[in-house]
C-alpha cells in the first residue's frame, strides 16, 4: 500500500484535501495570535499588523488562499454524502453551499470595508 495515493488522481486530490487542513490551522493560529496581540494593546497589535506585510507572511497568505478555497470546495462537494437522504439533487446541494459561502464571504468583505471607511477619523 506504500505510495497508494499516487495510483490515481482521485487519491491525490483526496490527500490534498486532507493536507489543506494544515494551512487552515496555520491561518487560524495567525488570527488568534493577532487577537492576543490586540488584547495586549495598540503597540503589539500594530507590530502584528506589520508582521503580516513581511514577504514570508505574504507568500504564506498567497499560498493559503487557493488552498483554503480548494478546501471549501471539497467541503461542499462531500456535503451531499454526509446529509440524510433528501429529494434535492446532489449538484443543487453543492451549488447551494458554494453560493452561500461566496455570499457570506462577500458580505463580510463589504462589512469590513464599510466599517473601515466609517471608523476612519
Amino acid at each position, binding site marked *: *500500500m506504500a505510495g497508494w*495515493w499516487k495510483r*490515481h488522481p*482521485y*487519491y491525490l486530490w*483526496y490527500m490534498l484535501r486532507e493536507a489543506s487542513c494544515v494551512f487552515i490551522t496555520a491561518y487560524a493560529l495567525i488570527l488568534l495570535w493577532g487577537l492576543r496581540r490586540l488584547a495586549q494593546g495598540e503597540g503589539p497589535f500594530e507590530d502584528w499588523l506589520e508582521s503580516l506585510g513581511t514577504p514570508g507572511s505574504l507568500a504564506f497568505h498567497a499560498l493559503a488562499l487557493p488552498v483554503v478555497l480548494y478546501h471549501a470546495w471539497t467541503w461542499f462537494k462531500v456535503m451531499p*454524502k*454526509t*446529509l440524510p*437522504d433528501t429529494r434535492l439533487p446532489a449538484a443543487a446541494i453543492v451549488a447551494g453551499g458554494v453560493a452561500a459561502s461566496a455570499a457570506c464571504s462577500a458580505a463580510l468583505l463589504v462589512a469590513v470595508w464599510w466599517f473601515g471607511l466609517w471608523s476612519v477619523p
Partner: protein
Amino acid sequence: MTRTIRIECLRYHPETDAEPRLQAYEVPFTDDMSVLQGLQYIKDHLDGSLTFRWSCRMAICGSCGQMVNGVPRLGCETFLREFWPGTVRVEPLEHFPIVRDLAIDQSDFLAKLESVKPYLVQKAPPAGENTNLQAPEEMQAYYRYSKCINYLLCYAACPQYGLNPAFTGPAALTLLHRYNADSRDAGRAQRMPVVNQEDGVWGCTLVGYCSEVCPKDVDPARAVNQNKVNSTLDYFKHFLFPRAKEKS
C-alpha cells in the same frame, strides 16, 4: 472492422508461482467487444489456462469486476475500443487475495456481509394486519442502496480497506444501511454495534472513490457517512439514557 489490441493479464498460481507476473496477448477485436470478451477470446484461442470469473456479461451479476488499467471496473461493460491503440492491463481487484490469475478470494467480504445481517429482521405487523405494508416514500428511503449486489469494486477503490482490512467496508455498510432504513425491519439494535465500532463507519475517511466506481450508482460513501450521524446519535442516546431500552 477488426483491429488488434494488446491485453496484459496478471497471472498468478499461488501454489506454484513465487509472485504474480504480467502476460501479454495480442487480441483481434471489433468495436462492440468488451474487455470480458477479450479475455474470453484469450481463453478460447490463445491460452486456455487463463482464469477469470464471469457470468451474465451484461453488468448485472458483478462477477467480472477487475482492475482495468488500474481502475476497478466491470469487464463486461468496459470496451476494448476505449484503449486502442494503447494497451489494456487487466488485474484482479485490489486488496483481495488471489485465488488464481484474475479470480479473487471474497471470503473476508462475505464474513463482513454476514455480520451486518443483510436481511429483514421481521417486525410484527400492526394489530389486525398480517403483513407490513410499505408506502412508496418508505421504499425510496432504501431503494437506492438495495441495488448493491456486491461487485466489490468499491472495496478495490477504498484505500482505507487496503490499509486496514478489518474495516467493514463500503458494500457491507451500505447493505447494513439498506436494511436499517427499511420501515419493515426490526434489526437496527442488532446492527448498530457493527456501525459503531472503530472498524465500522468510523474506519471511513470519506475518500469517496467507492461511489465513483460503483456501476449501479448506489453511492456507498453516502450510506456510510449518513451512519456516522446515526452512530453519533446512538452514542449520545446511550450516554444520556444508559438504561433506555433499545428501540428497534
